[in-house]
């Protein structure tokens, strides 16, 4: 792995830190239509999401959890993207979309952190019990 010269490196761009420290749509919904939580036992990351769906559209969404900056910022970014999106469009979101939105180089060791929120979306919204984040 290369060693960037500056401390403001690509690994932790400002907006990643911002989403980590000031997560958007953080909390719980009182009456969610879908709620699902996943964890990564290896590092203890947890991400859960509550969805409110009307006419096939995600009207409202909240996430909760704890863990590293990558997993929590990824979840925060995901909720911003999903709010107002149809479930059909949400189903099209894939690994490349999530990594692209993070906009940073993710090492193999951290890929599970980055994709934990995608797993929550897939298992929760798709109802795919065996959704694999790979």
């Amino acid at each position, binding site marked *: 792995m290369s060693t960037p010269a500056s401390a403001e490196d690509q*690994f932790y761009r400002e907006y990643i830190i911002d989403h980590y420290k000031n997560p958007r749509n953080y909390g719980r919904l009182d009456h969610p239509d879908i709620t699902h939580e996943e964890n990564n036992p290896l*590092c203890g990351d947890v991400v859960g999401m509550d969805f409110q769906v009307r006419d096939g559209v995600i009207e409202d969404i909240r996430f909760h959890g704890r863990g590293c900056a990558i997993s929590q910022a990824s979840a925060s970014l995901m909720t911003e993207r999903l709010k107002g999106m149809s479930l059909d469009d949400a189903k099209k979101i894939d690994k490349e979309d999530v990594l692209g939105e993070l906009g940073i180089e993710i090492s193999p060791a951290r890929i599970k952190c980055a994709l934990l929120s995608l797993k929550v979306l897939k298992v929760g919204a798709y109802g795919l019990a065996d959704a694999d984040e790979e």
Partner: protein
Amino acid sequence: MSTLTYDVAAVRKDFPIFETGIAYLDSANTSQRPRQVTGAMLDYFERYNSNIHRAAYKIAEEATERYEGTREKVRAFINAASTKEIVYVRGTTEAINLVAYAWGRKNVKAGDLIVLTLLDHHSNIVPWQILAAEKGARIEYVDIDEKGELRQDQFAELLERGPKLVAFNLVSNALGTINPGREMIAAARKAGATVLLDGAQSTPHQPVDVRALGCDFYAFSGHKMLGPTGAGILYGRRELLEAMDPFMGGGDMIRTVSVEGTTYHDLPWKFEAGTQAIAEVIGLGAAVDYLNGLGMDAVRAHELDITEYAYEALSDVDGLTLYGPPPSRRAGVISFAVDGIHPHDLATIADRDQVCLRAGHHCAMPLMTRLGVAATARASFYVYTQKDEVDRLVSSIKDAQRIFA
């Protein structure tokens, strides 16, 4: 050799990996290997590669001799009574599983008590859980106090209940706590328990004498003590090993085989079925030679010096929490957390500075639960660790704090 004469720069010259510029602070996970170890293995591959115990020709005689030669080196290294008590295994995990299977299935019965501790590694928990579930035995765990040391009062209470087995690590891989092994073993034996000691984190770092300790079984891995992966040791007191059935059946562990049945080989080969990790065992022998050359008292003194230095340097960092006992009562392992920064983020930022740091639960999830954390960052030291590497760690932590400020 005293710390004053310990020449870490000379030691580092034996480890080519440091030419890459890394600061390696993950030796509790796996150590680096010196040229003497990789050289011994390469010598086998290039000069006398052959199978052992079937020698009809010279190079196989040499392979057998060197493979068996490691056994005597290891016997002397841990002061076992006989090479018959030194069983080659892949590592600590296999050693403990061997005992859980071959001793446990014969001796542990429904209702029996197994005593473990919250400091134990998963490899000294899971095999006993499997055994307990199969046999209907119970497991109790010795708790820790606020310093991360085992609660001896609670241990004494558990011993009053007459456990069948007591198993614990001499040194905690997650906190570095050095447990009072000799006292605990004596008390456990007096209570009638068989005692297994997980020596994965003690054998590489301090002088070990299994007879002075008085344990029944002692398990450790070669790869944490400058040797290669795939070669480890189970020590067992001879009468216990004699009474045990084999772990795996196959070639090399038999005396005679007929269609009616099999008679087993003598100790220690009874437990060594199939073609063995010959190069790795030869490498482990070279690692023992290397450590003897440094002297285990000198190794411990050097690590204590580095640990005290690191403990102080990390204590000076704002917002940093240290886990575990003071340096004098711990091995070269320091677990810590930095406010507002997840250990994995810290490790990623450190990696950018070529600082190899462990982040996670360290295969000690019951301990992490007890500490109320999901993960910690962990720095660990060895014969080649120099203070400059600790300084680089502190600098990486401060970088991370700036990024997350």
